Each structure stands twice: as C-alpha cells, then as structure tokens.
C-alpha cells in the first residue's frame, strides 16, 4: 500500500551535471525518489520525497539540495511558539547540500 502526501511542495533539487553516479542517494532514500540512468541520478518521484535529507547528506559531490526537516505538525507548532528552528538541528531554513 502506497501512501501519498501533498504534491508540488518539496524542496528537493538535483544538479545532474555534478552527479558522478555513485548511487548513494538511491541507496539511502526510503521512498525511491531517485534512480540512476546511464550513470547519472535523476528524480523519479519528486512528490514521494519527505525531505529527510538523507540523499543530500550522503552525496559526496553536493549534487543534491533539499531543505531537510521532519514532517511533524507538533514540531511546527513548537517552531511557531519558540520562533526558532526545532525541526532539525541545522535549522529547517538552511538548505542542506
């Protein structure tokens, strides 16, 4: 059974020119968002991305960019009240690449 969340919202970006085709991103993604084609990664299913940041974190050539965070309403509430980022230690407003 496949779960789908809101469409056209995720911050995932891939710079195919930088990609060396190591395939780490395809290994770490739990949602099968990325795949390799002719030795270059490409985004198969952008709306499947949950912005966990694993691909960008493990890309040795920084070809992937995503604003990582946890899709948790309670964390967003806490964020609003504290006026600082709790969704990730790096700060949800930072782009991880």
């Amino acid at each position, binding site marked *: 059974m496949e779960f789908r969340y*809101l469409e056209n919202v995720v911050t995932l970006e891939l710079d195919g020119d930088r990609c060396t085709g190591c395939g780490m991103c395809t290994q770490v993604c*739990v949602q099968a968002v990325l795949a390799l084609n002719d030795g270059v990664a490409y985004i198969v299913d952008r709306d499947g991305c949950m912005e966990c*940041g694993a691909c960008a974190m493990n890309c040795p050539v920084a070809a992937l960019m995503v*604003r990582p*965070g*946890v*899709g948790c*309403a309670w964390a967003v509430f806490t964020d609003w009240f504290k006026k600082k980022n709790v*969704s*990730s230690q790096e700060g949800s407003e930072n782009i991880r690449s």
Partner: protein
Amino acid sequence: MGWIETPVGRVAGVSTKWTPRDKLGQTLVRMGIKRMRYTVATGLYAIGEPDFDSPVLVTANYKLSFDLLRRELAGRNLWLLVLETFGINVWCAAGKGTFGTSELVNRIRKVQLATVVKHRNVILPQLGAPGVAAHEVKKATGFRVRYGPVRAQDLPGYLDNGMKVSEESRRVRFPLRDRLVLTPVELVQAWKPSLVILLLLFVLSGLSRQGFDLHAAVSRSFAPILIYLGALLTGSLITPAFLPWIPGKAFSLKGTQLGLLWALFVSFTVASDWSGANLVALFLLAPAVAAYFAMNFTGCSTFTSLSGVKKEMRIAVPVIILSIVSGGIVLLVGSLS
C-alpha cells in the same frame, strides 16, 4: 552474558533473548511511560563471540531499538556500537542530527574500533542516513559506512546474502499494526490538556445568568464532553487506523471527514433531545477537534514532508481555531440563554 576480551579491554556481551522485564518495558514505553528515559549505555557490545573479522552494527541508545535489533541476531557473532541519541530512535535522532556524523566518528574513536576489528566497515540502519554523511565518516576514521536494511527483521537476510539489500527492505512501510502501535502515546500525551478542556467544558455547562450551578453543570456537560472525547478518539485513533482509505491527502482533511461522521452519528443517536445550540456546537467542534488530532499524527507517519505539513497547517490551523472558538461561543450562549 559475560565478557569478551579485546585488545582494548573487556566488552560486555548481550543476550539476543528478551526477558519478561524487557517485554514489560516495551509495553510501558508504547503507552508513553518512562519513554524518554528508556536507554542503554552507549559504547561497544558483543553478540555471541565476535572477533577481528566480525561485522559491526551501529544503533541508537533507545532500548526499544536496541532490543528489536539484538533479538534478530541470535546465533551470530558480531559487534554492536551504540551511539548517544538520548533515548531517541534511529530515524528521529538522525533527523535531529544526534544519530549523526560527529557522534559516529567520536564513538568509533572512543571505543577504539580500529583496534577491535581488522576490517573497516560499519553497518548502519538505512534510517540513520539523514544524519550521517558516509563520505565524511570514511574521511575521518577510515571506516566505510554501509547502509543496511530499514528494519531489524531484514538484517539476518542481509548478513547472509553478502550484505545486499533488496529493494523491498529499503522501503518504509506503514501498515495498520505500525500505525496503531503509535496511537497510545498520542492519547497519553493528549490526556493532560484534555483534562483541562473537560474541566472547562464542565464549568461552561454550569454557567447561567444566575452564576455557576453544579446541578446544571452535571446534567448539561454530558453533551460537550461526549463531543470532545469522541472527536479525540476519532482524530488520534480512528483516523490513523483508516489513514490510507480516507479520501484526501492532508491529515487534517481526513480527520475532518471522520469528525463529521462522528457528529452525524451523535446527532442521529444520543443527541435527539439536545438543544439547538448543542447541535450547532457539535458540528462546529467535532470535525475541528478530530482534524487537530489527526494533523498531529503527521509526526508519527513515515511519508510527510516538512514543506507539506507547513502548507497543510497554514490552511488547517486558522480553520480549526475559528471553528473551535465559534463552537465554544455557541455553547456559552446556549448555557446563558
């Protein structure tokens, strides 16, 4: 379980079996009891009788994670490296960065892993990847990070198949059982604010132009308390259970629909003799309260993005607040008139 001698000193052995105490602890943490203090000591452990060539598995110091892992390793010889995640599971800790590159690098150095084993591989659960940069770990320690399967139950297959991970065990599933096991904690966390809300509803029901009347409160609080408790269960238990079958994508929208069903059910059954105000309040409050608790389940789910949750909340939160405030006013006006 005894001790294993290594060049860097003795390493504690751990059993792959669960004791009744382990099972009790699991039941309690699933109900939210002592959940934030359910930890094991960090560092290196031995399963069976590992040696220089035995694989090294890395995990979090949440005892629930540690227990699920060690149970799958019966009859094997390997090392377990437990990171300091402050009692948080691998995935959430990776998201926070505590199950992260620097903790892994420091822990590898601290336990002198390079002296304990000859090989240079550490196996991490795939869900640790949001916090760990494999290439940085390699640069800093010489150890190559291999991401194993998502679930501990797929580890035996992984270890027996030359450390190949199947497509299937790279994916996160979210079956009914996994959804339901998370709901008690949600309910327990809702308990304290709910007590305050129930007390407020009780007092509100007893208000009249003459002031507060206990008899009126007792007889009239039944309706709003029923509305609230039903909506709470609808949002935090029924919606997660039926999650994939409820139309829509936003969790709050799913909760709203079931909250509406709950309001309809109440209005056709117990509410036959309710006042007009109570009926209006029912339809304002039940969907909104259910939507709120359903929305909070986003944090338990395995597929929501932060961008998506923020978008959902920008619409849902104002609607929920407006609906609850109007419902409260209707109840109050109904009591005073």
